[in-house]
């Protein structure tokens, strides 16, 4: 696939679907605390929202991947993996750390800390899957 946008779009669908499954399974396992079991409609709305945001985000990342392709270290799938981890570092680790900081130092709200931890933990498998899929799908023009 020679278009970063299309590769990003397909990788986004796969990432969105897989991460939704992980999130739903995690919720039923009680990974996010003791919550009321979600209703089916709630679950569908949540899953759909997650997948749509992921696809929009990953199309943009596909474009960035194509643009910066030559400067990303590694080859093939490994190049995609490094790119995925770079996104995780910028988007989730940095943003998550500021959320945790704000929760502890500024607002004193545990929800802020939870949001930061969520970003970092969910992000690691999400962007690893995305990077690997993108690295597999995207083949640059020669």
């Amino acid at each position, binding site marked *: 696939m020679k278009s970063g946008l299309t590769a990003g779009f397909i990788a986004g669908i796969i990432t969105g679907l897989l991460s939704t499954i992980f999130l739903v399974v995690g919720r039923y396992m009680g990974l996010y605390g003791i919550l009321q079991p979600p209703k089916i409609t709630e679950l569908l709305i*949540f899953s759909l*929202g*997650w997948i749509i*945001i992921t696809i929009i*985000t990953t199309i*943009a990342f596909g474009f*960035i991947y194509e*643009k*910066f392709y*030559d*400067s990303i270290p590694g080859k093939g799938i490994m190049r995609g993996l490094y790119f995925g981890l*770079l*996104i995780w*570092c*910028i*988007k*989730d680790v*940095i*943003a*998550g*750390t*500021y*959320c945790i*900081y*704000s929760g*502890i*130092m*500024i*607002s*004193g*709200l545990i*929800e*802020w800390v*939870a*949001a930061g931890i*969520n*970003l970092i933990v969910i992000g690691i498998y999400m962007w690893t899957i995305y990077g690997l899929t993108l690295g597999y799908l995207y083949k640059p023009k020669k």
Partner: protein
Amino acid sequence: MKNPIIAGAIAGVISGIFGATMVAVGYSIGLYGIPLAPMTVAVPVFILLTIIFGTVLGLIYGRFHSLILGNGLKKGLYFGLMIWFIKDIMAASYVILIMEQIAVGINLIVVGLYLWILYGLVLEALYKPSK
């Protein structure tokens, strides 16, 4: 300055001080409600975090410098806006729409905008890649 890591760290110091000042102003006018930690702790930690992340982003900037759009300060501005877009807009969209933490998301977007624009501009002003 030919070392992007040092340039990133210095840009992190400057934007960190600016960002912490804005947080302190927000604090004093009650924007964040009742503060938990004293300002003497919250401000240095904010600056320290921005220096650490500024260093990491400086390394990334050095690697991708020639591929970033624009010339001169515009290049730094675009990089800062790109970081803001990836880090804050995208992270905030998840935080607001999925985790339903609207205040957290708005905080990321608003603080991030001036923090990373300033960071990008200072970084570009300092960093001169070797030819």
